[in-house]
C-alpha cells in the first residue's frame, strides 16, 4: 500500500498526505498505545509524528521520497516520540519505582479490573498491561514485531540494531510475557 503512495507523495504531497495518514494511522496508533499505555498520549504522539512526517516530506526531493521505506520510517518516528514521552513521564515516577525488573517474571498485573467488562476486552487489557510492564528494550521489539507487524529487516532499520540482536530481543520479550502469564495462572489455580 505504501509503495503506491510514494509517487503521489513526491508529486503532490498535499493531495496524497490524507491517504498516507489513513493507511498508517491504525498501526501507528496501536504501536504508540501499546508502548505508552495511554490512549490520549498515543493520539498526541501519532499526530505529532505525522506533522513531522509532513514537514520532512515537504523538504525532501522527489528522489528521496521515492527511495523511502515508508513503513519502518513512520514507525521509527513514532517510536522515537514514544520513547521521549516515556522518558519524560518515567522521570517523574522515578521515586515510586524502586528496584529493577527482575528479568524472570513480570510484576503481577493490577488486580482491580472491573468484572463487568467483557471477557475479550479484559483479555486485551490484560495483555496490554503485561506488554506495558516489559522493559523498554523488549517492549519496543515485541510491539514492533507483533503489534505493528514489521519484518525483522524493517525492525533492524527502526531500532538501529542487527537483525540477530532484534530477533533475540523479541524472543526475550515473548519469553517474559509467557512467564508472566504462567505465573498468573499458577496463582489463580492456587486460589
Amino acid at each position: 500500500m505504501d509503495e503506491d503512495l510514494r509517487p503521489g507523495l513526491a508529486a503532490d504531497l498535499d493531495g496524497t498526505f490524507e491517504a498516507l495518514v489513513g493507511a498508517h494511522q491504525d498501526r501507528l496508533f496501536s504501536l504508540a498505545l501499546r508502548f505508552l499505555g495511554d490512549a490520549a498520549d498515543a493520539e498526541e504522539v501519532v499526530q505529532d509524528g505525522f506533522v513531522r512526517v509532513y514537514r520532512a516530506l515537504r523538504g525532501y526531493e522527489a528522489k528521496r521520497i521515492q527511495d523511502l521505506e515508508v513503513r519502518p520510517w513512520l514507525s521509527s518516528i513514532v517510536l522515537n516520540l514514544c520513547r521521549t514521552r516515556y522518558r519524560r513521564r518515567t522521570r517523574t515516577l522515578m521515586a515510586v519505582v524502586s528496584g529493577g525488573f527482575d528479568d524472570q517474571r513480570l510484576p503481577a498485573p493490577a488486580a482491580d479490573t472491573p468484572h463487568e467488562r467483557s471477557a475479550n476486552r479484559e483479555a486485551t487489557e490484560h495483555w496490554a498491561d503485561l506488554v506495558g510492564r516489559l522493559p523498554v528494550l523488549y517492549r519496543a521489539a515485541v510491539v514492533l514485531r507483533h503489534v505493528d507487524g514489521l519484518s525483522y529487516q524493517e525492525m533492524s532499520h527502526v531500532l538501529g540494531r542487527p537483525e540477530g540482536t532484534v530477533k533475540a530481543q523479541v524472543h526475550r520479550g515473548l519469553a517474559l510475557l509467557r512467564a508472566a502469564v504462567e505465573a498468573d495462572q499458577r496463582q489463580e489455580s492456587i486460589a
Partner: protein
Amino acid sequence: MNTSTSGPGTGLSQVEDSLRELRTSAPPTLLPATLAAVGLADVYAALPSAIGQVWVAWNGRGVSALMTAPDAAAFEAAFRRAFDRPIRRVEALPPSLARAIARRLAGDRRVRIDVDLRGRTEFEQAVWRKALEIPRGEVRPYGWIACEIGHPAAVRAVGTALGHNPVPLLIPCHRVVRSDGHIGQYSLGGAENKRALLAWEGADPDELERLARAGIRYFGSDTTRIVCHPTCHHARRVTDRHRMTFRSMDEAARSGYRPCKVCRPVAHAA
C-alpha cells in the same frame, strides 16, 4: 480453576496471537486533527468583536480566515469557496489564540499571531505587513502604503491587496483609507463596519470625512514646522491655536514644513 478470561494458552505462538489482538483502530479524531495540524484542513469558531460576531478559521500554520457571515453554514460555504479545504466547527478558539487576538484588537502590535498566507504574493504580504504598522486609532491612505513598500505607482494594487486580506481585524486594513481622505470600502461587511471599527478604536470617522470633503489632507504645527497625517498621535497633540492645515505635501513644503518622521507623510499620498 486453572483457566481465566485473561490467561489464554501460553505457547509462544499463542502469545503472538494474543499480541496481534492488541492492534486497534485510531480514534476518529486523529485524522482530522492531523490534517488541521499540517494545514490541509481547518477548524473554526465564532468570535465576538466590535462589529458583532465574526468567524475565525485556523490550522497548524496559523489563522487562515476571518469573515462575517449570517450563520455557521454560510461561513463554511464561503470558506470552502475561497480555500477549497475541509473545515469543521469547534467550540471555541484555543485560549492562547483568543488571548493573542484580544491583545491585537486592543492595539498591541507586538503580539505574535501566526497567519496562514500560503499562495499569497510577495506584494500582498508586503502590503499587509505595512498595514500592521498603522497604530490603533490612526489611518493612512492607500498611497502611503504604496510608497512605503517601494511601489509608489501601485496605489490601486494596494487597494486590491487590502480587499483580499484573508484576516481583516488581525491585519487592520480598516486603518487604510482612500487617498482623497474618504474612508472608503471595507471587505469585512462594508463601509459601515469600517466606520464602526475606526470609531471603536478612537478615530473620529465623521471628522475624517469632514476633512476629506474640505480637501484637508495634513496637519502641521506652526511651532515645530512639522507636517503629519491628521490621525498621527503627534498631530493630535497640536492645540487648535497652533494647528495648520494643508491640502498637499507640496503646499506644506512650500510653507517650510518637513514631514513627520513617525507617520512619514509623502507627496504621493495627497
